[in-house]
């Protein structure tokens, strides 16, 4: 067997297990959210399921203490790595006052935390993309050396804001990583009715930037691509467009029924390629994870989630009158 991929990338056992743990944590939080939603305890879920490998692979290549993250609603795997806790995310799911993202003002999935360099996001897709360019432009003015990663779906790459922002970053050679999580659908519309080119990464050449498409189920491949993109960014070589190919394993959100637009067979096939399954296998085959470690990991995550769920369920909403706060600085 030639050198394993993780060795070539210089990733060690602990880091690799950390990656799996973050992927699993995201998955299990999301699964819990669905249960809570179906039990009528939380109004809304929008899922990371199927995207975790791509997300965690990507952020592992960043520096959470200096880089900025401008994620989209599916990026639970990313924000966990950047410092958001399980409890934080449960507080958001339950819309509690302690939710650090918005104090319960926004739907879950609308991440943001200045402390963690996670820039606040909204619902209209792709608006975060020019913001990432703005952070990078500010860094250039201030001669800082951070990179910005912003993510979005393949459908969202059709918004004008994507185009305008990518071109801006290209002209000024800014250290922005445009990270497209292609999951084949934008709600019900399949990718071939959505984008006229074969791959979203084909668009990189429009902006004079590097582009590539990666298997989103392989966190190591994604890590490598984003690592290279971050290096290019720090070296002044400008932005990159990285596209990961994944599959959304759940309906679009808790309000969606995906049976009207995709077959069960297609979903079942995708489950077989699930990055969590294949990465676990990768680690186990190479003896980077024992059965006991795996079980302990699952148990620990489960327990954390149980505790976080309980804490969030018991936590208070913000007071009704706080509706009026923070429109302007005061």
């Amino acid at each position, binding site marked *: 067997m030639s050198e394993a991929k993780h060795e070539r990338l210089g990733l060690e056992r602990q880091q690799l297990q950390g990656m799996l743990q973050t992927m699993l944590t995201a998955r299990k939080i999301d699964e819990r959210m669905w249960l809570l939603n179906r039990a009528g305890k939380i109004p809304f879920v929008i899922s990371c399921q199927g995207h975790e490998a791509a997300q965690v692979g990507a952020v592992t290549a960043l520096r959470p203490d200096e880089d900025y993250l401008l994620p989209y609603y599916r990026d639970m795997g990313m924000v966990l790595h950047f410092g958001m806790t399980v409890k934080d995310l449960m507080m958001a799911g339950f819309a509690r006052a302690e939710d650090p993202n918005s104090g319960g*003002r926004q739907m879950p999935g609308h991440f943001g935390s200045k402390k963690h360099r996670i820039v606040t996001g909204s*619902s*209209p897709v792709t608006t975060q993309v020019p913001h990432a360019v703005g952070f990078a432009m500010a860094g250039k003015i201030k001669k800082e050396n951070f990179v910005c990663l912003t993510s979005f779906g393949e459908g*969202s790459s*059709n918004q004008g804001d994507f185009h305008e922002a990518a071109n801006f970053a290209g002209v000024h050679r800014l250290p922005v990583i445009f990270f497209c999580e292609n999951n084949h659908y934008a709600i019900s519309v399949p990718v071939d009715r959505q984008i006229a080119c074969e791959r979203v990464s084909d668009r990189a050449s429009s902006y004079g930037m590097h582009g590539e498409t990666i298997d989103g189920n392989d966190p190591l491949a994604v890590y490598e691509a984003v690592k290279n993109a971050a290096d290019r960014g720090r070296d002044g070589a400008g932005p990159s467009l990285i596209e990961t190919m994944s599959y959304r394993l759940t309906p679009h959100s808790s309000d969606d029924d995906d049976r009207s*637009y995709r077959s069960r067979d297609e979903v079942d096939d995708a489950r077989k390629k699930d990055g969590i399954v294949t990465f676990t296998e990768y680690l186990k085959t190479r003896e980077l994870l024992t059965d006991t470690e795996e079980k302990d990991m699952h148990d620990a995550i489960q327990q954390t989630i149980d505790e976080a769920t309980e804490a969030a369920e018991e936590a208070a909403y913000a007071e009704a009158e706080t509706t009026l706060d923070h429109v302007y600085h005061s």
Partner: protein
Amino acid sequence: MATSNFISAVTQALKEEMERDDGVFVLGEDVGAKGGVFRATEGLYEQFGELRVLDTPLAESAIAGVGIGAAMYGLRPVAEMQFADFMLPAVNQIISEAAKIRYRSNNDWDVPITVRAPYGGGIHGALYHSQSLEALFASTPGLKVVIPSTPYDVKGLLKAAIRDPDPVLFFEHKKAYRLIKGEVPEEDYTVPIGTADVKREGEDVTVMTYGLCVHFALEAAEKLEAEGISTHVLDLRTVYPLDHAAVVEAARHTGKILLVTEDNKEGSVLNEAAATIAENCLFDLDAPVERLAAPDVPAMPYASPLEKHYMMNTEKVEKAIRELAEF
């Protein structure tokens, strides 16, 4: 006459207009096989095919702009914006283009497009799935902004919008979709755009409002009748251009006016009614012109107590009517 809910009236109007005129077609995100995220276009894809029930890429400015082009060509596009909140990327196409094409071309070109969008809150939609967008468009000559309150009006006004030779923005309250039911004739009929409608006759206080709030006003009126307070309810229906004559008449009718909107207060479309009254009915008034609206915060929060604090409801309207009656 069949009872129908609010959203079925939308679907019925679309279906009938598409059958009546093969220039009518629907375009938007997820309007095809899925039938729309609220199911407004359910069944249309199967009946009319993918070209007339067109799933577009995720790009609102293109939805509007392509619709405008097709309308100038001579078709009758009905563009769906998945949520009113997501019309904002299309504002340039709507305001710079749709609204101004007839005028700027000296009547050579026109844009008979209808843009439908679900608006409003109370459904845990948080900031970006709850907004009222009408104030943004209600200062743009060339546009018409319609906000129906009943299934009957939905069907009649949507048909009128589709047949209208000018661009019409058609806002449907998403909470009304399955909540509000009413009689809807199976026959073809239209309700004229630009005319307000008295939804209840009364003598003490006039409530002027539109959309879902009409129901809060009617419920409040019902309750207050027991207390001997008689409420007149004017449903504005078209908020731009406003039916100024109806506003003046309804204001004079009771001399006490309550204006109600789910939108935040400052700069809301109610102001046009208030200004019209201040300009025309000064000496007919028995009380200050009251505005009841959401607080001036960017939009409705997600958490229940905050959403409730923001959202309009029957109790708030009832209280305001009572205070005005007692003035």
